[in-house]
């Protein structure tokens, strides 16, 4: 039986996934020709039924399906203390708004870093996390003193922490002495001594210098303040607070095919608009799901598609999707009425009355459902 040939004929009617599954089942059951054709017929019918019918207002259905649970989220957005082992990420309604508003800066940017097979174990993950997390001078210092007599700074280093970071004193001094600077760092016993080049430095300046030294970057990737290793079903990953996707993708041991950022805009910059769409989809759906609510992912798909069809990012709302509606009346009925009416009268816009809101305003049938067609005709078969 050539199932493949039979299925391939359906290329225009059924999507690839359905076709593959159909072929698999046929092979499993080892159907004869008649049975196979019956299965194909039934599949086609079921597929047709599962699709939206012409005139169905799926936009409104999607909006209602997302916003009804979202109203419940307002009341229930509580703070889960110490969740995800230390990394606290914006959740609930604020996060959902942030995603669909296409915010330029998000409240708590974070990344999910996945690992290559060689590093997919506890030690490997910890190793990568160590390399990713940004370490500053202040993180390894145990005590600091400003020597007012000699006008110098002394920093005691916590050797345990240092060891944990795979650094030694010489590395630290080396890093401190990198680039243009107004001081010279050197090892003095167990501590680091910092001598200003300017001998007549004021105490205030010295204080400022100390703060600068403490903030000096020693190791890791800038912008990533936390990296927490977690395990899920035997697979290890790292959650971070702060993002720098571009740099992290280059770190040894990181799986660049899976690693993502929670900041959709960053995903767009690194991977492009399709990645942006997928991030909206994934993050939006995840946020709702985390709250224990069940929203069909296809509603989120519609939202994500609306935001990205142009290849450019459009927010949901006045400055994005809603603001670019074709109808003057529809725009005017949604926020800033006067501005839209004035602009429309200056330009001499025409409202074709093609959509719902404008037809509700003048009380005509809305071109949706039963109001979709004026005359229907079924040709004889």
């Amino acid at each position, binding site marked *: 039986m050539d199932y493949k040939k039979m299925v391939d004929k359906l290329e225009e009617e059924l999507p690839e996934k359905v076709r593959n599954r159909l072929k698999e089942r046929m092979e499993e059951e080892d159907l004869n020709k008649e049975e196979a054709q019956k299965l194909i017929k039934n599949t086609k019918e079921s597929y047709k039924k599962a699709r939206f019918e012409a005139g169905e207002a799926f936009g409104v259905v999607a909006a209602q399906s997302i916003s009804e649970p979202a109203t419940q989220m307002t009341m229930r957005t509580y703070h889960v203390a110490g969740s995800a082992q230390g990394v606290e990420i914006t959740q609930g309604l604020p996060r959902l708004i942030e995603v669909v508003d296409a915010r330029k800066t998000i409240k708590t940017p974070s990344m999910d870093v996945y690992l290559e097979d060689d590093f997919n174990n506890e030690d490997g993950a910890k190793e990568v996390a160590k390399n990713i997390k940004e370490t500053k001078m202040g993180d390894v210092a145990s005590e600091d003193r400003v020597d007012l007599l000699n006008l110098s700074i002394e920093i005691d280093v916590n050797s345990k922490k240092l060891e944990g970071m795979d650094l030694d004193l010489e590395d630290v001094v080396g890093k401190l002495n990198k680039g243009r600077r107004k001081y010279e760092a050197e090892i003095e016993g167990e501590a680091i001594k910092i001598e200003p080049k300017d001998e007549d430095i004021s105490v205030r300046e010295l204080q400022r210098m100390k703060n600068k030294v403490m903030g000096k970057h020693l190791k890791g990737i800038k912008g990533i303040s936390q990296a927490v290793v977690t395990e899920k079903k035997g697979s290890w990953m790292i959650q971070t607070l702060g993002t720098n996707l571009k740099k992290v993708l280059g770190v040894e041991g990181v799986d660049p095919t899976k690693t993502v950022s929670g900041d959709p805009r960053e995903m767009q910059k690194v991977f492009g608009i399709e990645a942006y769409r997928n991030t909206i989809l994934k993050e939006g759906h995840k946020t709702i799901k985390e709250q224990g609510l069940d929203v069909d992912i296809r509603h989120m798909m519609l939202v994500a598609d609306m935001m990205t069809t142009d290849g450019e990012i459009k927010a949901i709302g006045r400055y994005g999707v809603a603001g670019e509606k074709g109808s003057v009346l529809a725009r005017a009925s949604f926020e800033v009425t006067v501005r839209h009416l004035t602009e429309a009268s200056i330009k001499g816009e025409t409202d074709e009355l093609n959509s719902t809101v404008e037809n509700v305003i003048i*009380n005509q049938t809305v071109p949706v459902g*039963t109001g979709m067609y004026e005359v229907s005709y079924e040709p004889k078969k």
Partner: protein
Amino acid sequence: MSDVFLNGKFLGTTEDPKEIVEEVREGRREGKIPKEFNVRHNKDEDNIQINTDTGRVRRPLVIVEDGDPKLKDKHIEKIDEGEMGWNDLINEGIIEWIDAAEEEDLLVATTEEEVTEKHTHMEIHPASILGINASLIPFPEYNRGDRISYGAKMIGQTLGFYSANYPLRADTKSNLLAYSQTPLVTTQAEEATELNKHPAGQNVVVALLSYKGFNIEDALIMNQKSVERGFGRSYFFRTYDAEKKRYSGGQEDEIKIPEKDVRGYRSEEAYSQLAEDGIVPPEVEVEGNDVIVGKTSPLRFMGTGDFVTGIQNRRETSITVRHGEGGVADKVLLSENEDGNKLVKVTLREQRIPELGDKFATRYGQKGVLGLLEKEENLPFTKDGITPDVILNPHAIPSRQTVGQMLEVLAGKTGALEGKKVDGTAFTGKTNEDFKDKLKELGFRSDGKEVLYNGETGEKMEAEIFQGIVYYEKLEHMVSNKIHARSRGPVTLLTKQPTEGRAKEGGLRLGEMEKDCFIAHGASMTLKERFSSDEVTLPVCKKCGIIADEDEKTGKAMCPMCKESDVEEVPMSYAFKLLLDELKSMVIYPKLEVEEAV
């Protein structure tokens, strides 16, 4: 150096603030300084505030000196014998009035046992922590605080015998409970506030029982017979005003039955209840929209073409009964107002017998609406033949933890059987043990439960039912004040859309989100129909796209811009026509492109 302020104004400075405060206090207690003086040494800002002005909240406290309250047994004896009064206690420096500022410096003991050397004052009674309404609730210390708050709030909504001179009063709106009773389980505050002289509730037999499911979700089941005997019956009074106004040009209103040629004349029937003087006589029954004071006024603008010779040029401005209300004319008051105009006040009285949906409550925030009026013979009964007046659902109790109400049942039961009121003032330490023995003596079970028999089958109920006397309040939220429905009705002038609100017989709005539901279902035609309340069909000029004027005489439409009559009749919402008009008024030309309808 401390600054001294009198009523917020700077008075001077002192080196020894303590002494000044002491001196003022001593003087006040001895009667040298008026007792309205309150003094406080604010140590944080180091100043002395003396306040004597009005508007401060003050409360009386017993003075304690060296750990010894000044109020002694001998004083209490004298008070009991009537030899001493409140003013004597204050004049003798036993009790003093303290304001909020002065209280800051004091250490007040709640009970006599608590008093130590350090204390400066003592509460007269620990229950004084409660406000007026909250202190009317018996056994409050056995309840959760929020329930007491709810209960206190609802006391403010109860119907009662609000004033003894109610037949003489002309309140715009008032309710009067028939057969009001003082509570069997009471507090000392009830006597102090004289609420026992104008009570607001009734003592009824309450069974804690689920019955046929009609008391689900906090609903109540009531005994039809107890309602017929007067439980929950109240009267609603509303006073309508009519003023005989005088206008410029020597014209004035006339109070009489309007002539038939008056503009806006109602049907003859509407005036049928009026006496010759144009006012309803007392004890005449009226319904909603009936005229109770017949009145006509002169036309608003004389000589503007409205005036027609040969007929009465007056308009009808009668006072009518509100839509949905009615009753009997209780009293008619004829008087004159401050401008010397004749004033007519008619008070209507309406009997309100409990009906399904009326709201009732106990004093513990246990509110509910009437769910079923059951015939007495179908209700459960005891061996003595007692049927409950109210059946309360037991689900109302555990989550709300109103233990006080359980105590009230026991206390009420003993009170009713002994014929005595029971004191339930807060913090007096009464427990259920106090009622157990009494109930047993009186021939009842000590736990307040009783064996009941099913009223319909006569079978003994498997469980003993907790039953006793509870004070029930009827709240002012009654269905007859709220019921509302409309099919057709009045519209607003501007938009031609239905009016809003019950008082204006308004429609129920199909809002933005409801609209979305119709769209989501694809019910386009239904949506159009629902929004057709303000639909109009207007002629639109095919050339200019502007709404044409219709000639009243010929019925022909003419475009105001091109003076042609090539128009198309277009149905649209009046609101949209209004939008077009408003745009035109702002010099924007909204052009409608119309095609011939298919």
